[in-house]
Structures are given as C-alpha cells and as structure tokens.
C-alpha cells in the first residue's frame, strides 16, 4: 500500500509472541513476557517457571517443544492450564497416559468435536481477568490424596475468582472453603529456612495479605505426602513468625517476575499459637493445659537452661495427632498417648483434654 513500508527488524514481537528485548543481547536474542525473560541463545527462561512439573526443568520453555506449545505469558502449563481452560470454556480434561506417545503426560481439553483445545501451557483464559495462579495447600486438608497440589486463580483486583483444582485426583475439591479463606490474599512469598526435622521441605510458599500477614496456607513443591505437607506447614509458619524472608513475589501489577527481585515482605505478625500465659485454653473444643501450651510454643520461646522447652507444634498439628494418631496406653487409665508421625500428644481417654505434647526429635 502506498505510504506504508515494513522493516522486519523493527517489528516488536518475536518468539512465542513475546516482545523483544534487543538491547540486552542484540537482535532476536532475548524476549520478555509477563512472567519470564527468555534467552533465545539458551532456549531457556532466566527465572524459574512459576508453574513447574516434576518431569522437566523449571527453566525450560514450552515443554521444550516450541512448535506445538505456546506460553505467551510464561506462567502456566499442563493440567492447570487445562483445568483453567475448562473453567472458562467447558469441555473434558484428559491426560495422555500413553508412555509411548511423544505427548505423554501432557494435558488436553476435548470439547465436542474439537479436541486438544487446551494443550500444555495453555493460556487461552487470559482474556478474562486472571493474572496469576496461586498455589495453596490448606493446613487441615488431611483428607486429600497424597502429593496433591492445589491451585487457585487470582484476578487483577486480587480477588480469587476460580475454584481450586485438586491436581492429583483431577477433581474439583474443597474450593469453597479455600476461596472463602483466601479473599484477602495479595500474593505469595517464598519462605526460606523452613526445613522440618525430616528435612523434606526445601521450598515452602506462604500467602500474605495486604497487611503482610502470612496465612496458614503453604505448599511444598517437593511432592511429599499430604500429611507431611500439613505438618510442614506448622513448621514453616513457626519459622515464619521468627524469620520470614520473602524472596520472590508475583508482582500483582503484572510486570515480569524476573524484574521483581527486591524483597517485598519481610515478616509476619500473625501467630498460630495461643499464648501459654493465658493458662488453660480451649481451642476448637479441646482443652489445653498450660504445660501443653508451653510445650507447643515456637521453638526457642520458652527455655529450660540452654535448651528449648517449647517444641513448636501448632494446635492444628496437635488436633491432627489427636484425631488420627496411633493410641497407646499412658501410665494410668487417666491418660492415653496419641502418636502421629513425630508428634506425640498425651490426652485424657476421650481426647478432649491435651495434657502434654512431645515432638520426637527436635
């Protein structure tokens, strides 16, 4: 057309529909999107993918298959993408379980005669107001299957708008309670120094609200069993009250995650433990003696000589041991011992009164 011209070098967008950052490494070597910076020379993203799967590097891009898969914003993939697609577009979610297939393990949404609409790293729902996934694992969700991850969606106004997806069983589960409890969540933080006695937790994420209160929802990305995840929650938040360090945060304004490198949240003000100084206390219908409360306080807050008398066991973990722990006799008929994992709770036979709490190994 007269008066118009085209210069390929000045076109803004490159690989994967992302905007070029030619000033970094020269032409065509770097592109950016909402959640990543991509280095075309390496075929890798700079930052860790906020949505990872067990079988590939968190720095990989498009499942190492850029011809078949797109990830315009660099944040979603696999089953989450498929389920998210289903939320907004309907259809049935399937996973390819044929190990001989080149697309083994990948997720699809079939919808009538149209199959494979939401393949791997799907982001077709971004026409709505979803801007980021929030991974959550509720502290008391012991009835969930092992190794499950729970996902939710956060919109630009920071309201949670999607149902939770129970990843392992591929069913919708527990969405209502979680959504209700997470209305004020503003983002997530990476809590460091959160190793449990078993050492199985390397990375734990907590959610924080505008007041920087860390909620009792964290997830462990290492894929351990659900009860250990729940136990880890207690440990993580116990530590969080002492040393929460926020390393990376999804920028809710929508700029690239790799550009959000500053520490945003540093400390929680929310404690999981009722003060032992209040004496006997009833929590969720269970009476705790002062001694039990002292033993439950965060490690290091109550000392006997040079060692910590308090063991850092939140009430939720005690309740869990009370409900599901193996019961053995106490010294007399007046008490029983309930042991779950490395937490031992001494209660009355009815389980309505907690006399003491023991952590096996500290």
């Amino acid at each position, binding site marked *: 057309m007269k008066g118009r011209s085209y210069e390929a070098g000045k076109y803004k967008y490159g690989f994967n529909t992302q905007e070029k950052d030619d000033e970094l490494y020269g032409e065509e070597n770097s592109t950016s999107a909402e959640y990543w910076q991509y280095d075309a020379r390496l075929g890798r993203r700079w930052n860790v993918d906020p949505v990872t799967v067990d079988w590939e590097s968190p720095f990989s891009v498009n499942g190492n298959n850029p011809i078949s898969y797109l990830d315009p914003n660099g944040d979603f993939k696999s089953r989450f993408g498929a389920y998210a697609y289903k939320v907004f577009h309907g259809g049935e979610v399937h996973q390819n379980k044929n190990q001989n297939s080149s697309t083994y393990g990948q997720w699809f949404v079939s919808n009538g005669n149209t199959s494979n609409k939401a393949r791997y790293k799907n982001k077709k729902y971004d026409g709505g107001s979803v801007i980021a996934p929030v991974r959550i694992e509720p502290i008391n969700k012991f009835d969930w299957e092992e190794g499950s991850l729970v996902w939710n969606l956060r919109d630009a106004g920071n309201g949670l708008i999607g149902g939770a997806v129970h990843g392992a069983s591929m069913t919708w589960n527990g969405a209502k309670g979680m959504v209700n409890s997470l209305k004020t969540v503003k983002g997530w933080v990476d809590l460091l120094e959160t190793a449990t006695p078993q050492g199985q937790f390397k990375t734990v994420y907590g959610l924080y609200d505008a007041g920087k209160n860390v909620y009792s929802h964290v997830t462990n990305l290492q894929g351990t069993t659900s009860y250990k995840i729940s136990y880890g929650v207690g440990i993580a938040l116990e530590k969080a009250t002492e040393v929460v360090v926020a390393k990376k945060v999804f920028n809710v304004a929508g700029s690239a995650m790799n550009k959000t490198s500053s520490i945003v949240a540093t400390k929680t003000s929310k404690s999981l433990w009722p003060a032992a100084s209040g004496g006997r206390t009833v929590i969720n219908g269970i009476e705790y003696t002062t001694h039990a409360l002292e033993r439950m306080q965060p490690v290091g807050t109550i000392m006997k000589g040079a060692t910590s008398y308090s063991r850092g066991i939140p009430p939720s973990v005690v309740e869990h041991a009370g409900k599901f722990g193996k019961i053995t006799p106490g010294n007399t008929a007046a008490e029983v011992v309930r042991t779950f994992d490395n937490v031992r709770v001494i209660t009355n036979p009815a389980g309505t009164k907690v006399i003491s709490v023991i952590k096996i*190994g500290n």
Partner: protein
Amino acid sequence: MEFNKLQKILWANMLKSTDRYRKGELCYSDFVYGLEGFMDTGEFQDKELIEQWYNFWTPLEILSVTKGDITTIEDADKYLLEMETFLKSKSDYHFNEEE
C-alpha cells in the same frame, strides 16, 4: 551408627542425672527436662534411636505433668529403671562400636 564424642558425653550425662535424681540432688522436673535437653543437644540423627528414647521418656514426662515435683522415686522407679536399662544398652553398643 556410632556416637560422636559429644553424644557419648551427653548419653553418659543422662545416666548420671538419673543417679542424681535418685540421690535427691535433682528435682523431678529438672531431671526430666534435663534428659530431654541432653537429647536435643546431642543432635542424634538415628531416628529409630530417638523414637526408642522417647518411648522411655514419655512415661517420665507423663509423671511430670500429672504429679510434678512431688513425684517420688517410688512413683518413677519402674520408668527410671526402664530408661536406665535402655541408656546402658545403647551406650554399650554405641560406645564399643568405634573401638
């Protein structure tokens, strides 16, 4: 798993503190939580050993919670003997392993 030098000292201290409690040199709560303190300080890594230890410590803790410092040696005797037997059996094994 053999004990390191510190662990051997702490394990021996557990036995010593049992003696001291029997002699009336320690009050019951100091004795019970002193034992746990030794266990913490030793940073023992053998999970089975730790669990066994807590199996013998738990009855002592229950006594501490239910009777406190008025616990008599007679009240605790059965559990003290069991703990002592356990500590000695493990010290024999773990102390000799290195030699």
